[in-house]
């Protein structure tokens, strides 16, 4: 089947839903490797259904996440499989036969050794490839961050700590042409459980008007602490407040961590 036929048939949706047979799955996975169109289509279908289902998720407690982590850490060490002790008697009967088959056995052993060696090399290769992909990914992240910081078109705004957290600081990189905005939040403390930092673009006159430009979600997971937020059209100042998970419609001024004028 041609790529477009695959796409139009609707089978890729069922592939993402997990409703196909193993043979069909393997066939499509191979097809996706060969055809970027098919691959892209699968990714888009998956994004759509993940977005749809996620938006229907009822509230579940943060405690649940902690419980799962605790359960996993308990059994974090490698499970060593116990092999049943071999029973002598079982083997006595076989010994004679084994002698006869020794010649053949030797051959098999050699073959297995070779196969093992090949498998080991294969495993090593996969490991190295994964290692490389990981480093490559880290490297790209760092490069991207460096580009943001270096970009001459970016206006850098330093946000200083406020009453609630005087030692906090942050930096905003705002490109006034493209409106893209990044936050360097390395100077903010880790947010408490169930809370999230929210970034606001502020207009100061004629009246103070805050506009939310995004949340610094997954604060812990972002090792570089550089976050992309929404485009900022207009701002005379930027502020960061601590808000309940999901963010707020208006900033909680008592929880204003950092603030800085453009």
């Amino acid at each position, binding site marked *: 089947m041609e790529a477009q036929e695959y796409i139009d048939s609707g089978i890729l*949706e069922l592939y993402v839903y997990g409703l196909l047979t193993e043979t069909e799955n393997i066939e499509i996975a191979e097809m996706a490797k060969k055809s970027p169109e098919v691959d892209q289509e699968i990714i888009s279908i998956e994004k759509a259904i993940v*977005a749809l289902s996620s*938006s229907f*998720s*009822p*509230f579940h407690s943060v405690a649940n996440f902690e419980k799962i982590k605790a359960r996993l850490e308990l059994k974090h060490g490698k499970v060593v499989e116990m092999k049943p002790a071999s029973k002598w008697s079982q083997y006595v009967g076989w010994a004679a036969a084994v002698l006869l088959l020794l010649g053949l056995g030797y051959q098999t052993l050699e073959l297995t050794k070779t196969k093992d060696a090949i498998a080991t090399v294969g495993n090593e290769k996969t490991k190295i490839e994964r290692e490389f992909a*990981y480093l490559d990914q880290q490297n790209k992240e760092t490069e991207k961050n460096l580009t943001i910081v270096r970009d001459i078109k970016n206006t850098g705004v330093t946000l200083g700590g406020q009453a609630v957290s005087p030692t906090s600081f942050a930096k905003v990189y705002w490109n006034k042409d493209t409106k893209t905005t990044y936050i360097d939040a390395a100077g903010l403390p880790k947010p408490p459980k169930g809370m999230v930092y929210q970034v606001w673009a502020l207009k100061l006159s004629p009246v103070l008007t805050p506009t939310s430009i995004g949340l610094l979600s997954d604060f812990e997971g972002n090792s570089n602490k550089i976050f992309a937020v929404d485009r900022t059209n207009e701002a005379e100042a930027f502020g960061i407040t601590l808000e309940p998970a999901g963010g707020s419609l208006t900033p909680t001024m008592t929880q204003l961590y950092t603030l800085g004028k453009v």
Partner: protein
Amino acid sequence: MSQEELLVLIYKKDERAFTHLYDMYSKSLFSVINVLIRNREEAEDVLQEVFVKIWKNIDSYNESKGRFYTWILNIARNTSIDKLRSKDFNNSQKNLPSDNFVHLLDDSNKLVNRIDTIGIQEFVKKLKPKCIEIIDLLFFKGYTQQEASEELAMPLGTIKTQNRNCINDLRNYLKI
């Protein structure tokens, strides 16, 4: 973060991997679990069980046999269905709840992403009722095409294409 980037972190046993995994997929899986298991507390238990299974068996995931998301989706469905079966003895074939995923919108449920997703929920209200039924059976409840065609009294051949049209509507809306 894409699925591919996530897998790189997982294979590397990077400590952030589990947090990312949970952030990216727990909501999606939790809604699937809740469609199948109507009790919130039990659903949370199942969610725990599902993530423990995913993490412990992650090495058995095989990229050449399907998407990672599909793999974890199947774990979520199967764990939920096992749970249902273990509780209910006189079960007729599928024995899944008869109401569809839209019931999760009942106001007794506090939805996580009320702010970000009001849009998508409004969209679902406009979605053709047939689409809701089809997505509910195929995606949330894991019916085969055959089972869905019987349940909805639709010809077998049209289930797949109808479902694609529904997903296309959703994608147009989401601009994906």
